[in-house]
Structure formats: structure tokens, C-alpha cells
């Protein structure tokens, strides 16, 4: 499912666009309206966040979005139901979930229900390479992808092993720290890491954490295959609901999508 998406973007000589949305923030109706708006605007893949009480990899924006979703009692089961409901009408969905909700749900059951809901894969930021075999196996058996993350602190040899094990794409974290708007001012380390990954893998490279502006997207054009935009997108509609949230999302992503073509 994801391979075709990246292939199409490559043919169209542009980056693929992967927006991140927290499911249930502040309610699932709003999330559905946003998913439809993102799809209509041209999102290639949508990362759908599963609310969690202790999101270690997330900065204030996404952590707060998760808290709003939890106040509305959205959990993994509800997120899967939403994904299932949108399977015909939305861009391919990749879940972004911490491990504990999956562990409580049951790894096998999670893979089965995610496949039944039509999602394309799952990103689990607190499951690094060494702990990933069971989940990767369960998802892989149903042809669901499990992209793994590479960080600026990841040594090259390890990055190569991660790229080898990742499925769907390799998620390249742009800078140290947690999710949140703002790239590192110095692009050189990221450029070096992407170049080094290119030498060891043919899998698509998606850059996330901090991608905020059309200029960021243009800067990444010749280096990566996709950009992930999360916190900045959530900031654009936080505090609104349903169609009004969807309208803000459309306004926010239009210039980002316009910046995708590789010049």
C-alpha cells in the first residue's frame, strides 16, 4: 500500500506529504473531518496518533493534543474504528502509537484488528530495533508496515541495521529532542545522515520532528522522499472543532503541499 504511494510521488517528482493528526482531539468527529480535508488537499499518507498518557517522544503540542483526546475517552479501539470507517475515503493511514496501549490490547490482536481496519502500518516510537521483532513480525504477517526511527544520535552502522529492518519507510528524526515545531538551524548533520542512509537502503526516507514551513519542505526536497508535519499542523487548528478545524487544516497545508515539487 505504501510502496505505491511513494512510487507515485517519485513519478510526480515531488516529496510525499505525511501529516500527523491526534485521533480524538478533541473528538473523533473532528478527526474524521480533518482526515477528509487532508485527503482532499493531497496528503499521501496520514499518521494517526493514538492517545497515550505518557508520550515520551512528544513535545508540548502533541502531548496536550493527546490529553484532550483522553478527556474525550478516545483509546486504541476507537482509533481503529475511525480508521475502519475512513478506509475507502482517506489516504492510507499509519497509526502512531506508544507501546503500552498495544501491549494491553495484545500484539497479535492489534495486528489483526489493524489489518481488518485497513490501516497500512504502525509507528511505535518507544519500540526501538532491539524490542521490535515481535511487533514487526505480527504486523508483517498481515503485510502491515512498521517504519522504524533513525535519530541524529544513531551511529551509522546502527542506522543501517534499522533501515534494513524497517518496513514501509524509514522515519528520519530531524533533530535531537521530541516532536515540536522548528527544525535545527544547521541542516548539515541531517543532510549527512540522509546521504549516508541513501548508501545503505533503497527504502523511502521520511523526515519528521520539526518540519513546519514551506521553506523547510523545499529545503528537504532534494534530500528526502517525504516530510512529516505534526505539531505545526495541530497548532493550526487546536481549540476548534469539526468543519472549522477542517477549514484551518486546508489553509495550513495548502502552502506546504505547494512546496512539495522538487525543483
Amino acid at each position, binding site marked *: 500500500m505504501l510502496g505505491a504511494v511513494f512510487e507515485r510521488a517519485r513519478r510526480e517528482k515531488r516529496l510525499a506529504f505525511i501529516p500527523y493528526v491526534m485521533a480524538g482531539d478533541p473528538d473523533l468527529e473532528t478527526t474524521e473531518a480533518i482526515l477528509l480535508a487532508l485527503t482532499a488537499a493531497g496528503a499521501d499518507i496520514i499518521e494517526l496518533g493514538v492517545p497515550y498518557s*505518557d508520550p*515520551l517522544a512528544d513535545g508540548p503540542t502533541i502531548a496536550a493534543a493527546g490529553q484532550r483526546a483522553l478527556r474525550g475517552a478516545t483509546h486504541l479501539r476507537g482509533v481503529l474504528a475511525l480508521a475502519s470507517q475512513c478506509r475507502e475515503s482517506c489516504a492510507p493511514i499509519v497509526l502512531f502509537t506508544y507501546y*503500552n496501549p498495544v*501491549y494491553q490490547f495484545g500484539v497479535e490482536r492489534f495486528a489483526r484488528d489493524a489489518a481488518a481496519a485497513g490501516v497500512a502500518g504502525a509507528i511505535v516510537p518507544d519500540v*526501538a530495533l532491539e524490542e521490535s521483532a515481535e511487533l514487526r513480525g505480527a504486523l508483517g504477517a498481515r503485510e502491515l508496515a512498521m517504519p522504524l526511527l533513525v*535519530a541524529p544520535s*544513531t551511529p551509522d552502522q*546502527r542506522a543501517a541495521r534499522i533501515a534494513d529492518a524497517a518496513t514501509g519507510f524509514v522515519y528520519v528524526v530531524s533533530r*535531537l529532542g521530541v516532536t515540536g515545531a522548528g527544525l535545527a538551524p544547521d541542516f548539515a548533520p541531517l543532510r549527512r545522515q540522509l546521504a549516508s542512509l541513501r548508501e545503505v537502503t533503497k527504502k523511502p526516507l521520511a523526515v519528521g520532528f520539526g518540519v513546519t514551513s514551506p521553506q523547510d519542505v523545499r529545503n528537504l526536497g532534494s534530500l528526502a522522499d517525504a516530510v512529516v508535519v505534526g505539531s505545526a499542523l495541530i497548532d493550526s487548528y487546536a481549540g476548534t472543532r469539526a468543519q472549522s478545524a477542517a477549514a484551518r487544516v486546508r489553509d495550513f497545508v495548502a502552502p506546504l503541499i505547494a512546496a512539495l515539487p522538487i525543483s
Partner: protein
Amino acid sequence: MSAPDARGYFGDFGGRFVPEVLIAALDELERAMTAAFADDTFWDEYHAVLRDFVGRPSPIYRAQRYAADVSSVPLVMKREDTNHTGAHKINNTVGQALLARRMDKRRLLAETGAGQHGVATATVGAKFGLPVDVYMGARDIERQALNVEVMRLLGAEVHAVTSGTQTLKDATNEAFRVWAQRVEDTFYVIGSVVGAHPYPFMVREFQKVIGIEARRQTLERYGRLPSDVIACVGGGSNAMGIFAGFVNDAEVKLWGVEAGGKGLDGEEHAASLQAGSVGVLHGSRSYLLQSAEGQVRETHSISAGLDYPGVGPEHAFFKESGRATYVNVTDAQAIEAFHGFARSEGILPALESAHAIAFARRLAAQRDADDLILVNLSGRGDKDIGRC
């Protein structure tokens, strides 16, 4: 006492469930720790600091009156309350600060609940000339104003954490996030036997001095081993420290006392091992208090140091293997022990330690003069004055 396996597991518990950005730092820490642990000069310096700065060995002391009405069993206290900064926490922060210096890290980072670990980290930061940032829940900052002032006097910067429950759990989340940002020059000093591998093992090794001393002292003074060793368990570092001295003595029963709060029937407690289920929090697989959906629950204990939804993975392993038994003491019982022990022994125990003391009295009723109960009196109670 064994080390965890290569992936950091004690049986089914432990591991490394953290974002990729931290993995290289954990690898670096593990390498440095392994080298330091094999180096006698490292331990020589650690023990010299414990002797001259912390005041070790801490004494053992037989409580004569506290349980005399229910039993003739000798009730012996390991006096971690006599340490510099008033609790066992400093044993660990001395070790981690020495390791940080060896690794050439420039800053220390810590989470704290009651403030004891924050104070212990601020103390070694001052001693070794390393700047310290402490993350503490906004609610805990209100509840533990004295410790906040002490940390500031020692030169540490105390950051209020306003997310989530605004207590230790969220302070720990925030410390992990800050570490992810400053991972190159900052050493994260975790305060208990929790977190991702190698922290649970490393912190146990730095707290093991409690059990090694206590075993020797008990043999010297009484010519026998204790029948029972009791310690309170939040994250579980003082318990793992004293247990480590006796874990190979199969005849010694090990008891961990969790915070029963307002009782295990409801949700207002912090008894992860007795009322929780297996899950992943703060980097390792262990028992935790959580909802059916895997959301980590808010906990309650009168004692801020036990008010934590998780517990160290090695305790989970001891629970499963049966090597230790875990029980609980409620807020009311702990407060009663706090007052009773102060009046009968002339020692104000920390509310955390008062949980262990309350259970010791309960157990004493089933023991006699041939037995010997050893209790880890993990900290002093000055910080709790006015709270009970």
C-alpha cells in the same frame, strides 16, 4: 545476585523501551558503567566519598520499645536516615555523579517526587562542580517546598512540570524529554531502580552497599542472619539495595511494602505489584497501575516518595519468582507508625520508611526471640513534619 541478560531483562521484566534518540546514550552509559564496575579505582573513590561525605557505614540500631508489647523479636533498623541529606538516595547519586565525571558529561539532570532524590543530586552536583537541572511536578513543588528551597540553595535549577498529573510520573516523562534534547553533554541521574537498561541494574549496584553493610553488621552484632528483611517499595531502590545483601541467603525472607493509600479496594493507592498488571512505563517492562486501555493511572499515597504507578523490573521478577513477598500498608497505618516510632524510639522516620516500620510491627507479632527482623529505615522524617 545476578546481572540482567544482555538486553537488560530480569526474567520477563526490564528491557529498553525508549525513543531511538536515547538508545546511543544508553549504549554509551552501559559501556562506561561496565568499565567502571570492573575498575577497582572507581569503587575505591565511591567508597571514600560514601565514608567521608555521606557518613557510611550507617549504623544498625535495635528498636527496643516500638514493638515490645507484641513480640520479643529483635527489631533492627538499618539507619539510612543518618546519611548526609537524610536518606539512602545519596548512595546512588554519588555513584552516578562519579560515572558522569568519568564519561566527561557536563551537566546532571534528575527527576524528583518528594524532592529527596533532587536534593541528593543537587548535593553531588555542588560537590563535583556539575550544574544540575531538576524536574519536579508542580503539585509536588507545592507539597515539598522545603526540599525545593534546599535544592535551590545547593545551586540546582528546579523546573516545574505542569503536564499530566504534575507529580513524579510526569516529572520523569519530562526528564526523559529534556535528556533527548541534551543527550550529548548531559547525564540523566535516575533516582530509583526504574527506567531503561542499564538503569535498574546500575542503581541497584549503587544501593547494594546498604545490604552488604547490614548483612555484615547483623552477623557481627547478633551472630546470625535476619529471619526477615523489610523495606518500603515505590520505585524500589532502598528495597533492592538492602535485598541485594541477602538475596542469596535462601532462609532470609524478603518483604517489600507498597503504599496501600486509602486501601487496595479502590484506586487511591500506589501498590503496583499487588494491584497492577504488566506493562511498559519509563523505558522498562514491569508491573504498573493502568487502565484496561493501557493508560497509566493516577496514584495516591500520603508519602510522595511512594506515589508512583510503576516499580523496578527486578521487583517484578522477585514477585514472579517468589523470592520476595509484597504487602501493603495504608496511609493511616503509616501515619500511626510515624508517630508511634517517634515517641517510642526517638527517631522520626520518613513517611516512606514508616510503611516498612508499620509492617514490621505486624510481622513481629508472628515472630519470637529466635528470629530477627531487619528494617531499612530509608530516610528521616523532617520533610514530613506538618503533613501527618
